[in-house]
């Protein structure tokens, strides 16, 4: 099939950036979206033009690197799917596709579709872990965890840190990302010791990094490729209130 693309091109952080039109010809329906971009890029390179810069790595939907905005939707139109797992069979011949970087105050554009998501790492650095020193920990089975709790922690732990939730949020909030980590660790007995401090410092760091606050739009859940639920934000809020009332 043949497609018309409008792709965001921006040389660097100081460049204003613009949408540029490209024709993608002979696209196979079995291609992934990134393979379609590979095809366009090979054409650009042959002509001596700069190819479109985009982040990607595992190409199997787990590393979280490839997020971009397709037709206005972070991680594209297919539910619960990363861009690398979105296949061209979901488009049809003659379609026009708009491709842009994730847009948020906390994610400055580096080039074209590549953004800096280092601010998400800063949130984790502030306290998104259990402070277990290597060695000197108890036997794995010494800590019993009810299956439902383990499953819930796992549901939250599936976050791949792609940042689609932030770009979808009208406030540019990283609440779903933060809440997923808070929930994972607060649900497990190992994580309770630091739970009160964790929720406070992570929330504070999130705001400090330029992310907005949650306005209950639920756009984050709608675009999350791993189906992380907004219930976790409620859990974060409960943990936060408990911590503050202590």
């Amino acid at each position, binding site marked *: 099939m043949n497609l018309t693309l409008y792709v965001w091109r921006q040389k660097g952080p100081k460049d204003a950036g613009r949408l540029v039109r490209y024709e993608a010809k002979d696209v*196979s329906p079995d291609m992934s979206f990134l393979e379609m971009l590979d095809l366009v890029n090979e054409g650009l*390179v*042959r002509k001596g033009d700069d190819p479109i810069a985009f982040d990607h790595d*595992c190409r199997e939907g787990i590393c979280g690197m490839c997020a971009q905005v397709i037709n206005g939707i972070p991680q594209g139109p297919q539910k619960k799917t990363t861009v690398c797992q979105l296949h061209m069979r979901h488009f049809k011949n003659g379609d026009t596709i708009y491709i842009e970087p994730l847009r948020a105050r906390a994610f400055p554009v580096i080039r074209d579709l590549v953004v800096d998501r*280092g601010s998400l790492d800063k949130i984790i650095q502030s306290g998104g872990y259990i*402070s*277990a020193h290597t060695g000197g920990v108890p036997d*794995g089975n010494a800590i019993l965890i009810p299956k439902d709790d383990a499953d819930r*922690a796992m549901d939250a732990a599936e976050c791949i840190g792609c940042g689609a939730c932030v770009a979808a949020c009208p406030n540019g909030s990283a609440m779903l990302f933060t809440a997923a980590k808070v929930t994972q660790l607060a649900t*497990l007995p190992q994580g309770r010791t630091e739970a009160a401090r964790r929720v406070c410092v992570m929330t504070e760091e999130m705001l400090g990094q330029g992310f907005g606050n949650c306005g209950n739009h639920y756009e984050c859940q709608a675009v999350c490729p791993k189906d992380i639920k907004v219930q976790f934000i409620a859990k974060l809020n409960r943990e936060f209130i408990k911590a503050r009332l202590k």
Partner: protein
Amino acid sequence: MILDGKTPSGPLPEKWDKRKQEMKLVSPANKRKYRIIVVGTGLAGASAAATLGELGYNVESFCFQDTPRRGHSIAAQGGVNAAKNYPNDGDSIYRLFLDTVKGGDFRARESNVYRLAQVSGSVIDQAVAQGVPFARDYAGYLDNRSFGGAQVSRTFYARGQTGQQLLLGAFGSLMRQIRVGSVKLHPRTEMLDLVVVNGEAKGITVRDLVTGEVSSHAADAVCLCTGGYTNVFYLSTNAAGSNVTATYRAFKKGALFANPCFTQIHPTCIPVTGDHQSKLTLMSESLRNDGRVWVPKTKGDSRAPGDIPETDRDYFLERKYPAFGNLAPRDISSRAAKEVCDEGRGVGPGGRGVYLDFANAIGRLGEGTIRERYGNLFEMYGQITAENAYQQPMRIYPAPHYAMGGLWVDYNLESTIPGLFVLGEANFSDHGANRLGASALMQGLADGYFIISYTIANYLARATPGAVTTNHAEFLKSREDVACFTSKLLAINGKRTVNEFHRELGRLMWENVGMARSEASLKSALSLIPRLRAEFWENVKVTGTGTELNQELEKAGRVADFLEFGELMALDALHRNESCGGHFRVEYEMPDGEAKRDDENYCYVAAWEFKGVDKAPELHKEPLTFENVKLAVRSYK
């Protein structure tokens, strides 16, 4: 050169304790005076950097991705082995050791494998303490499943995302050390050279992938945790960025490269669909706990799988290996799949595929149970193929997946360059000629959490901290070399893209140095690769400049290294006149088609020394002695 594995003497179970007692320590007050560079942030790199930081060393952590959480360990699905024997089904440290040595077709170093089995339990404890949400049973205890090459259930798992969860655990520990200030992180930074001063590793030269700036970093020791090289085949289950550059450039600086021809072709991947494809996707081996592998009995049977009655199906793994059935080791399962496809009984477009069928398990356990166990894998399969594997069997075919070969290291994980340590998939030491499922995660974390912290101290205690700075002539030369390499690539301005060269190299490697290798195919690879390499340096087109984010330039550097490394692989495969594990030479097979090892002549590690591009590398041998297991024909029947 005499290769000394530095294995401690004494009985196998006491070796590691003995070594720990012998080794020198660095006192807490002195640790901060030492700087350690850790390249890569997968399981081995993240766990090593975090652990060394916790101990008080000054650590510099490098990765080419935008954040350390994206190391390709994240894509490991099925699980992590440990000899905990929680199910009470007969497992022990010795049995995990034995399974791993046998699974590797007796081409690994006994002492290393035993130590791996010894510390495996601690890996699980550590991960649990970090909050890794492993699967639990209804009483709250850790759950286990079984994996290929084992007759016990020793695999711990977190749905189909075990690698992701273990990596995020290590990543959390790493983030904590970054906050504390013991680890400094350099994301989007690629190592392009190792700096060796007076014969010892004292730093690296890197390129900032955003600005293009080339800079050097000096340290008292360097750890490479940079993963494997199966992207030399272009199509593999590796991430697009996975490459051989860090280890290959260390090889060019004098580190020996061991067993480069030992590559693992994983049996359960989604088959190739067309030329546009940029990667192959693995379907976890854990699926073979419940999925049954089959093809039609007769050639050219084009009926839909559901229309083929039981009597017309050949469950070839169950037929050939009744003791292990669908959980036969990876090398054996892959070859068996290739064999039935070569006979013309393959399924799907092009006939390069076999069925992995869950109908039986769904009938027995219900769709809900299967969904709970493998839901994410079925979803992924559906996204890629547009087929529903709950209703029809998956189609799978082998694909390059893992590198058992890597930089040669001794028992202390130190390469032939003092001060250069190599961890995880990047080294060669534990898996011999074939890795068993769920053992990569175990090894990466064992190296990073529990081994390097001891062995690196033994080296550092003898070194003067901060002895060399980046003003040293070797650093200056290294920066010039890297800058020169970049300008050379940009100046060619030829006609063919980097991807075209990579695809052509990949096809050539797959056809000639792939699942079945022969003297003729290897010789053909050895004549074709240098030609392709020469063409690359005359005709590749790399757009843009060196002083900006330039992904074509990044790829070009990696492909340039693959174009040299592929030749080393072929040479190693040609010299090894035997079949063992993942290295299958068609001239050496048993009457029943199994690999025919030659213990008399090839029971050694082949470690290659770089002598110059277009010059033959020199072979050094580390003999493998087996004091605790009997060398035997590997049988899974």
